[in-house]
């Protein structure tokens, strides 16, 4: 059926993008793969009836955060990444089994508890409902979120200021 096919298409793109993010040598290619993954995830959010979050996800992550990443990569002019040195080179042989174990644990927990639950058609993701919740029950986290952003802005500005030497 239509939604199941869509789910698998988006899931396939997301997983493919995820694998490419961790395997490309050139960081700009990694960033592009991550943008593709974020798009696929936005599609998944829409399948879960979370329309507002999906659009905000594209606007914030794909439209702003990844652009920031790309700017920094381009300014630092990093083309390729050197090979890992020393004992770290063999980390990959331990990391993949560990991660596989982690995945199987998570998959096991999932299948134990959720055999018969399906996505429900709901209006819980519409702008009106989220707006109601965000401005009535969760208005304090909302305001604190804006303060967090201002603090981050000030922090980033301060960190990138050019330090004048004493006597200049």
């Amino acid at each position: 059926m239509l939604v199941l096919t869509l789910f698998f298409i988006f899931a396939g793109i997301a997983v493919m993008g995820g694998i490419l993010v961790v395997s490309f040598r050139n960081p700009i290619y990694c960033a592009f793969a991550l943008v593709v993954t974020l798009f696929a995830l936005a599609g998944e959010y829409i399948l879960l009836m979370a329309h507002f979050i999906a659009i905000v996800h594209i606007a914030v992550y794909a439209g702003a955060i990844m652009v920031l990443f790309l700017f920094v990569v381009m300014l630092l002019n990093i083309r390729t990444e050197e090979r890992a040195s020393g004992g770290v080179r063999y980390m990959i042989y331990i990391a993949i089994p560990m991660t596989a174990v982690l995945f199987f644990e998570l998959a096991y927990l999932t299948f134990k508890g959720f055999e018969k639950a399906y996505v429900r058609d709901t209006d819980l993701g519409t702008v009106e409902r989220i707006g109601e919740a965000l401005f009535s029950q969760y208005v304090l986290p909302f305001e604190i979120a804006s303060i967090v952003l201002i603090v981050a802005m000030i922090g980033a500005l301060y960190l990138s200021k050019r330090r004048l030497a004493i006597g200049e």
Partner: protein
Amino acid sequence: MQGIPISYFLILSAVLFCLGVLGVIIRRNAIVIFMSIELMLNAVNLSFIAFSNHLQNIEGQIFVFMVMVVAAAEVGVGLAIIVAIFKLRETINVDDIRLLKW
């Protein structure tokens, strides 16, 4: 007209999370490690939204909103730190930035 089982979304979330963990452990470039962290955050977002739909509770989506805000703030400050380190050490290979002072 049954729809998609919720467990599929959780499995997808688990896969992306594990890929993110793999990226953080294997990669040596600080920016790519950062991107893998973003991948992990997104996997968790997917989990939250899946649960929000399953439990018919809007808190999941509000929390995703907050996660996005925090991720944005973190990326801003983190990249500023990386740029500052690059100006100092001319490298962002995490193997070379291991020591606080040499």
